[in-house]
């Protein structure tokens, strides 16, 4: 029973937690926080079990559940995982309790709402990664916006409303196009011989590649635009710095750690396998934007006076790596991209946690307010150093593994057909050292001259508990990435194989032949 419905249980736990939090009295702050952390922890434990039980060698979806929802349109509650979603599910359940624990003292106002929204956000995010039905996916995709909007808009900084609205509108603009594309896809399924309207992703995998190239291009662009905003890919990234800077720490951690990955996940799950012909055509352009993002994000990051904004822009650079890896369509590159999603969640999530800790003490994120604090808070400085080095991509820590595989994949990719993507992308490795080391130096090294910093307290026990799990995985992935790479190998290979077949003109999974000429379906 538990095994069969494990995914639904993981999905339901945060909702249940949110419901209980709602029922608790407002004054019971401790109970509210404990409930939130307890439920998210149980979800994490279950997902670890999922990770262990997952059969890495088996192709296709595992732990699948399917219940009809709107039978006439073949919409169903259809969830399952493969090697691509597994890691992201674990990352989500891992970061949520950490984010909640990190806000133990910093969120006091309207605590009930905060904890409940964080749990609902977890549910929405998990739903996105688990859905095997396009309609269900879309529901989760949109749903997730609402808690995030309120988390930024209510518990955020001074300009939280502007940031929240910007985040909301940017994302909505993209997802509306995706909705149209989903409806069209479902409709297209009814036009093939023996077909009917469906939003079942697994069925659509077989049908969609046969869409004529012209329309396939529009479909690809509609999906990819929506994902590109979420990632974000340059030049659609300007919502990100505002959202991050204004969001409370927990919001930033989840936003950077998990939400951005919904975009890159969407590319692997939908854009590439559904529309292979169009993807092959457009991927050099997407990869080019990714490379621009790597360099641009790093350069803009270098000159930020606000530590949190610096980390935010660095995400643009790091996610550029992920997109480049995916677009390389090599096993090395896509595997690297998958792992880099996790690594970025740990390193950038970790950096946001650390920035939040110093902000809680000094209520400023301006780099120039600090300087020389390594002597005052040595343990904090050491933790920051390790997480920073992970973000820099130092071999032996997690960031390097993904980055190396991505660049290697991009370098050997026959889909990209130019080594310049990798060579220019690799320059991001230099720039990452520039912006991170420079900011580290300005915050921690030198003489401690600002008297405001003289009484800074070093890490508390609670903060240790928040950071140590992150550090464990930073080192684990760096030294023994096999644990994680093995899980995603088969699924990655399938995606790559699918695109390679499409390039060779082999009708991969195109068993069904369209009866009407697709060109007439849309102008």
């Amino acid at each position, binding site marked *: 029973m538990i095994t069969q419905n494990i995914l639904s249980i993981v999905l339901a736990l945060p909702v249940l937690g949110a419901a209980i939090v709602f029922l608790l009295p407002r004054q019971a702050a401790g109970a509210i926080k404990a409930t939130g952390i307890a439920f998210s922890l149980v979800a994490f434990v279950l997902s670890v079990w999922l990770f262990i039980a997952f059969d890495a060698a088996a192709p296709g979806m595992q732990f699948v559940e399917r219940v009809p929802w709107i039978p006439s349109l073949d919409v169903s509650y259809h969830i399952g995982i493969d090697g691509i979603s597994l890691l992201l599910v674990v990352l989500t359940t891992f970061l949520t309790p950490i984010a909640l624990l990190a806000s133990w003292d910093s969120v006091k106002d309207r605590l009930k709402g905060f904890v409940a929204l964080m749990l609902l956000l977890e549910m929405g995010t998990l739903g996105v990664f688990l859905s095997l039905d396009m309609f269900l996916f879309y529901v989760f995709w949109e749903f997730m916006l609402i808690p995030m909007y309120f988390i930024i808009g209510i518990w955020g900084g001074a300009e939280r409303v502007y940031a929240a609205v910007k985040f909301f509108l940017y994302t909505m603009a993209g997802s509306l196009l995706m909705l149209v594309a989903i409806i069209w896809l479902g409709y297209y399924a009814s036009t093939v011989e023996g077909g009917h309207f469906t939003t079942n992703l697994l069925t659509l995998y077989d049908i969609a590649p046969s869409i004529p190239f012209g329309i396939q291009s529009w479909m690809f662009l509609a999906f990819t635009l929506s994902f590109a905003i979420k990632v974000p890919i340059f030049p659609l990234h300007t919502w990100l710095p505002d959202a991050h800077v204004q969001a409370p720490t927990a919001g930033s951690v989840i936003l950077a750690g998990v939400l951005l990955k919904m975009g890159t996940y969407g590319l692997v799950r939908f854009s590439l396998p559904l529309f292979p012909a169009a993807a092959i055509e457009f991927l050099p352009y997407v990869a080019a934007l990714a490379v621009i993002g790597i360099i641009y994000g790093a*350069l803009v990051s270098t000159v930020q006076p606000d530590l949190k904004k610096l980390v935010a822009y660095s995400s643009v650079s790091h996610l550029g790596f992920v997109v480049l890896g995916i677009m390389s369509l090599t*096993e090395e590159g896509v595997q690297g991209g998958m792992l880099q999603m996790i690594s970025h969640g740990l390193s950038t999530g970790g950096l946001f946690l650390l920035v939040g800790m110093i902000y809680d003490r000094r209520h400023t994120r301006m780099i120039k307010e600090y300087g020389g604090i390594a002597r005052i808070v040595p343990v904090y400085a050491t933790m920051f150093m390790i997480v920073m080095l992970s973000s820099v991509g130092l071999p032996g820590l997690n960031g390097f593994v993904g980055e190396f595989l991505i660049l290697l994949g991009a370098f050997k990719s026959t889909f990209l057909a130019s080594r310049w993507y990798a060579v220019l992308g690799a320059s991001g490795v230099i720039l990452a050292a520039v912006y991170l080391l420079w900011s580290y130096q300005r915050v921690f090294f*030198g003489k401690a001259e600002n008297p405001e910093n003289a009484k800074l307290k070093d890490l508390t026990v609670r903060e240790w508990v928040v950071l140590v799990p992150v550090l464990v995985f930073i080192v684990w992935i760096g030294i023994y990435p*096999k644990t994680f790479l093995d899980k995603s190998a088969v699924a990655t290979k399938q995606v790559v194989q699918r695109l390679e077949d499409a390039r060779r003109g082999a009708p991969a999974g195109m068993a069904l032949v369209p009866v009407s000429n697709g060109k007439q379906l849309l102008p």
Partner: protein
Amino acid sequence: MTYELVPLAVLLPFIGFLINGLLGRLIKREAVIGAIGSAAVGIGFLIGLNVLFSMLAADPEHRTHVVELFPWISAGGLQTSIAYQIDPLSVVMLLIVTGVGFLIHVYAIGYMHGDPGFWRFFTYLNLFIFAMLNLILADNFLLMFLGWEGVGLCSYLLIGFWYDRNFEKGTTGDAAKKAFIVNRIGDFGFLIGMFLIFTTFGTLRFAPVFAQAEAFPVGAPIMLAITLALFVGATGKSAQIPLFVWLPDAMAGPTPVSALIHAATMVTAGVYMVARCSLLYALAPATMTVVAVIGASTALFAATIGLVQNDIKKVLAYSTVSQLGYMFLAMGVGAFTAGIFHVMTHAFFKALLFLGAGSVIHAMHEEQDIQKMGGLKSHVPITYRTFLLASLAIAGIFPFSGFFSKDEILWKAFAGGHIVLWAMGLFGAILTAFYMFRLVSLTFDGEPRWAHGKHPHEAPATMTVPLMVLAFLSVFGGVLGIPAALGGGNAIEQWLEPVFRPALDKLPHEGHASHVLEYTLMIVSVGVALGGILVARRWYRSTTGVPEGIAARFPVIHRVLVNKYFVDEAYDAVVVNPIQKGSERILWKGIDVGVIDWLVNASARFVAYLSRTVRVVQTGVAQGYALAFVLGVVAILGWLLVH
């Protein structure tokens, strides 16, 4: 069993790093912390010796062993492991790193006494040894890269060790950051090199890469690309033109660090990497020329700067850059053994020079300006004598160790027909002898130029004993490479022969040069070195006014040399400032805020304007909305169905 112990030699410094790093603050006692740190390295040296003896007992063709621990990064076609390759080359490096490393650890117990960061210092030092051993023992390029970046990190941490101190125009933090970033520029080349190797050979392991490379013709373009990319990495790590700028600033770190990392071991990693890939380089003659020219140019260029520096560590830093140039000259002319031999002798005498300088700085209460020293000979006798021996060794005086290794390089350059490179090297040797004895004379000879309040005293035994051991090695280390012309067996050449044989087979064979010519050149180089020494002693032993007179006659040259050819200033103006200003003004405030966000906000305003206009339809009657909604859905579905 012997070879299986090698991973332990790698692991021990890591354990030392963990113990001192996690518990050092609690242990507090310097003796315990220092003993843990030193033992972790010293045991590695014993393991290395044991391996050496087993190898000596084995047949020369069967001295290579690979010990595989566990798989590391594997995806798609890439399979890499944490695996160590033990062969005659890596065991030589293992012994240098752990041997010299051990002595410097012991020295540091005395040198760092009383420093509040004592435990942190030994933590970083052990981490460095761990990374360095990965670098030299790796059986594949990726693990080598782990060590390569790891030593860079430790260098960064140790240069910035006294992170709240000022250094020159900035802080130690500036110097540390500069070292890491310049090294990363080199690492970029290393990365590209690895990508090329993987796409060419389908693996990053040394053995299969080199086995496949045998099939490539000499001059194959891909070999040119691979070796040039890797060499970019080497110029960063080993401080060659154009990426040498970080090493002089690296002197901001404590002096044992300068001795260990920035003289004896880490900076020779680039030389080691070229030696390890000697076959690939031999297949790319054009790269060999580039390596030789960069090496000879750096040797000469850095030596000229060393002539006029007044900071005792700065002189030694430029001297290191210069000596590394000789090693690359050796690589470039195909004298791989001579290059590694010079790595070894240089590790002895340059470590000694730095440690001696540390002893002097210690005695002078943190003074580093040699203009404010003088007459220290009698106050620090052990330091003086050992420093003098090391200076004779680096100057290339017979029969000190430096003579054999440097002369071997110059001889191979000459015998290979590279007369210009040989002449550059020879001229560099004169300058070396000159600046070293300028340093010796200004520091130890003549009248004291320091304030009367100071009472210079000799360092404790933990510091002087390592000095004496290194002095012994600096004097006698040359016996390992006495050339046949002098009746020696050139033991090191025979030892490394199996490693370099594949590369040497690809190189054009030089004609057999006569011993008479070799003797002549030896006499020439020792003669000019002696000349350099004598001039320096005459000018600087007491205040003669001669150097000042020369400086006054050639003010432009003097100014250029004192300011190190203004290379730092040029890099700032051409690279650093444009990137910084451009990122801020054009990218961030221009494109991000000015263009993209303006468009986003403008479209939001446009929508707001439209909404105000169409607000009239917003009646607030829900039924009206529902009707409009249903009509809309019907219209869309109808349209889709009709078409």
